C-alpha cells in the first residue's frame, strides 16, 4: 500500500476528484494547507515596487492505494491537476504498512 500525498491548487479539486472516480477510487482525505515551492511564492508588482506572496493556499489530497493501483492513480492526478504554470504542485509517495477499517476492524488490502 502507498499513500499518495498530492499538493494541488484549490480549484483543481473537482477535476482531480472526477478523474479518481473514473478509476473507481472514491476514498480520499483533503486538508487545507499553505505551500510554497522553489520560487519562494509569487512575485508581484505594486507600482515600481516588487513584493512576494509567500505561502499560497493549497489543498493536500491524500489517497491510500494498493500497490497495483499506484501508477494509474498518479497519472490521473497529474493529468487532472495540471495547468502547466508554476504552482501546480507536487505529489509524494509514501509507503504504508497497513490499513484498518475502524467500522469492521478489517485490515490489509480489504481496508482500503
Amino acid at each position, binding site marked *: 500500500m502507498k499513500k499518495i500525498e498530492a499538493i494541488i491548487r484549490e480549484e483543481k479539486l473537482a477535476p482531480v476528484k472526477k478523474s479518481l472516480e473514473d478509476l473507481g477510487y472514491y476514498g480520499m482525505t483533503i486538508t487545507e494547507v499553505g505551500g510554497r515551492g522553489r520560487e519562494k511564492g509569487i512575485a508581484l508588482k*505594486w507600482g515600481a515596487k516588487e513584493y512576494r506572496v509567500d505561502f499560497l493556499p493549497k489543498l493536500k489530497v491524500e489517497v491510500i492505494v494498493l500497490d497495483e493501483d499506484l501508477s494509474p492513480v498518479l497519472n490521473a492526478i497529474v493529468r487532472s491537476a495540471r495547468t502547466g504554470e508554476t504552482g501546480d504542485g507536487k505529489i509524494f509517495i509514501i509507503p504504508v504498512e497497513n490499513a484498518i477499517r475502524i467500522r469492521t476492524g478489517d485490515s490489509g488490502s480489504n481496508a482500503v
Partner: protein
Amino acid sequence: MSINYADTAWVLMSAAMVLFMTPGLAFFYGGLVRRKNFLSTIMMSFACLGLIGVLWVVYGYSLSFGPDKAGIIGGLDFFGLAGVGQEPSSVYATTIPHLAFMTYQGMFAIITVALITGAVVERIKFSALMLFSVLWFTFVYTPVAHWVWGSGGWLAKLGVLDFAGGTVVHIAAGISALSLALLLGPRRGFKEKEPMEPGNIPMVALGAGILWFGWFGFNAGSALTSGGLASSAFVATNISAATAALVWMILSWIYRRPSLLGVATGAVAGLVAITPAAGFVQPIMGIPIGAGAAILCYYMMLFRAKTGIDESLDVWAVHGMGGTWGALATGIFSSVAVNSAGKDGLIYGNPKQLLLQLIGVLVVWAFAFMMTWVIGKVVNATIGLRVSSEEESVGLDISQHGERAYGGPLR
C-alpha cells in the same frame, strides 16, 4: 419657514441609518466573494464612504441640487457648502435645516456608487475603481439626481415619480454595473466553472439585516418629515421586503432547498422595488410589488447566469431590474390619496403615469449604460481596469491592499 424639530430629528436619524447601510452593503457583498477577496470587497464600499463623502460636500450636492441650469444640472452655488446652513432651504424640505437635507442626500450618493462595485469584485484594480467612482459620481450620479429630484430637473418636471431612489439609485447603479461588468470581462475561472462559492454567508445575512434596518431611513426618511407619510412609506417598505423574502425563499425551495442567501437577496429585491413607490402607494401594495420583485429578479438572475456574463453579484438583476419594476409599479399603484404630491397610477385610471415612469426608466437605462461604458473605456485606456492574472489568482486582498482577512500563519 421655521424648523420643525421632530422632522429634523427624523431626517437626521434617517441619514445616520442610510450611512449605516454602506457598511451593511460591504458585508452583504463581502460575504458573497471568495475568502481571498473578502477585504477588498469590503474596502470598495468603505472607500466610497470616504471618497464620495468628501466629493459630495465639495461639489456633488451643488451639481445635484444647486439652482437649476436648463433642467440638466445644478449650478455651483453650493460649492463647498456655501450658503448651506442651519436655516431651511427655500425649495427643498422646508421644515428642516438645509444642512440636514444636504447630508441626507449625500448618504444616497455614497451607497449608489458602492452598489456598482458588486459587479466588478475579485478582479478590478483598486486604483481604477477609485478613478471610475470619481467620474461616475460626477457624470452619472449628479445629473441623474438633478433630473429626477432637483428643483427644475427635466424628468421631475415631466412628472416622473421616484420617492426614494428607484431610478436615481437602483436603476442607475444596476445598469452601470452591467455595463462595467461587460467591459471588464469575467473572473478568471468563471468560464471554466471553477467553484466560486460565497466565502461567508453569515456575513451576507448580517449585511442584509443592516440593509433592512437602514432602508427605513432610506424610504421613510424620504418623506423628509415625520408623520403620516413617513409611516405609510415605512409600512410599505416592510411589507415589500417581507413579501419578497418569503417569495424568494419559496422559489429557492421549489428549485432546490429554502436558501438563506435567497431570503437575504429576496429581502433586498423587495426593498429595492418598493423604493420608488414607498411614499406613493397604499402600504398593502407592498405585497404585489414585493412578490413581483422576487419573481422577476429571481428569473433575471438565472437568465444572467445563463448568458455567461459575469456580473458577479447580480447588481443588475436585483437592483437594475428590481428598480425598473419598482419604477413601473409606481406608475401602476400610486395614489394621490396616499400622497397629495404624487399622482394616481394605472389602477386608479391614469395610464399616463405608467408611461411617464417608463420614460424615466428608459432614459436612465440608456444614459447610465452608455456613460458607464465611456467612463470605463477611459479608465481602461489610461490606468487599466483589471489586475494581472497572477494578482487575481492570489486574490485582491493581498495584491491590492496588502492585507488578509484573517491573521495566522496561513489563510
